[in-house]
């Protein structure tokens, strides 16, 4: 994968997170501590600052660099969670991924997030987007991009009727029902941005 593509991918994720920071913060205000958008914005602004150096590296190292920046800069639980995702993705993905190697690396990264957050799908978290997207990637087939995009957005919406079992939102119990999960929403936004960036 060439440097321009790496740059475009990472920049697309950063720009969408920053552009949606207010929306993410507002979602988090409903069922959390109201800092998800701010935290993610801080992290991805640091990602943009480091982007020339990050994108110059091969894809595995670039993703590890992205992960480390998020771990160090985000400041909420989403820092280590997203950081772990990209660190694990970088550990498994080759520099020129195919649909198959991407699916394998994505699945490994999702497992790492489960371990970091001691969580699984169905608990109203980012995993409720990451797990079904991993399944679509693993199944493969034609029109993968549009299907990944549709799954990510639908899966984030599908967190609305869920009751939060992890994180600050879980303190609300039944009152967490009726709101989308901010982490699921930010995951979906980033996945859509990547699909857009590679024209998938």
């Amino acid at each position, binding site marked *: 994968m060439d440097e321009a593509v790496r740059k475009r991918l990472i920049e697309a994720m950063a720009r969408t997170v920053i552009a949606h920071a207010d929306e993410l913060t507002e979602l988090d205000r409903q069922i959390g501590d109201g800092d998800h958008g701010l935290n993610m914005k801080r992290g991805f602004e640091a990602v943009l600052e480091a982007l020339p150096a990050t994108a110059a590296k091969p894809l595995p190292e670039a993703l590890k660099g992205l992960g480390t920046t998020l771990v160090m800069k985000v400041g*909420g639980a989403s820092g280590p969670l997203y950081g772990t995702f990209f660190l694990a993705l970088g550990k498994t993905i080759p520099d020129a991924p195919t649909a198959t190697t991407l699916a394998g690396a994505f699945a490994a990264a999702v497992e790492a997030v489960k371990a970091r957050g001691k969580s699984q799908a169905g608990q109203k978290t980012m995993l409720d987007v990451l797990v079904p997207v991993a399944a679509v990637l693993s199944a493969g087939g034609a029109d993968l991009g549009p299907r990944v995009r549709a799954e990510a957005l639908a899966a984030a919406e599908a967190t609305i009727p869920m009751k939060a079992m992890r994180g600050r939102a879980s303190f609300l119990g039944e009152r967490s029902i009726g709101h989308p999960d901010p982490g699921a929403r930010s995951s979906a936004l980033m996945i859509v941005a990547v699909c857009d960036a590679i024209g998938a």
Partner: protein
Amino acid sequence: MTRKPQVNVGVVIVSHSSKVAEGAADMVRQMVGEAVPLAFTGGNADGGLGTDVAAILAAIDRAWTPAGVVILVDLGGAETNSEMAVEMLDEARRGRVSVCNAPIVEGAVIAATEASGGSPLEMVKRMAEELSPQ
């Protein structure tokens, strides 16, 4: 009389709030004085509420002893960021630092009291965790 070298387990307090972290540390000091290496951190890199992996790593460094370090945390992000920080330690230290599943203030005071008697890391952690319902 030669002073016994410092071998007690250290305590690190990680809160979303620097005031909570500092206040909990004050309560620990009142209980154990200087007998236990103690460090605290609170707030994100911008000084707002949150936690900061780099600051947690620095706090572990300040409280480090060869006997190890226990970390007391408040809410989710403090725990996740502390576990991340532990994984980023070099291999020699990583196995000697443990995040406790315990309430931050009570856990810190009990852990430090236990540590001040020279108990090993596992015992210090267990005493703090007895405060949490299993």
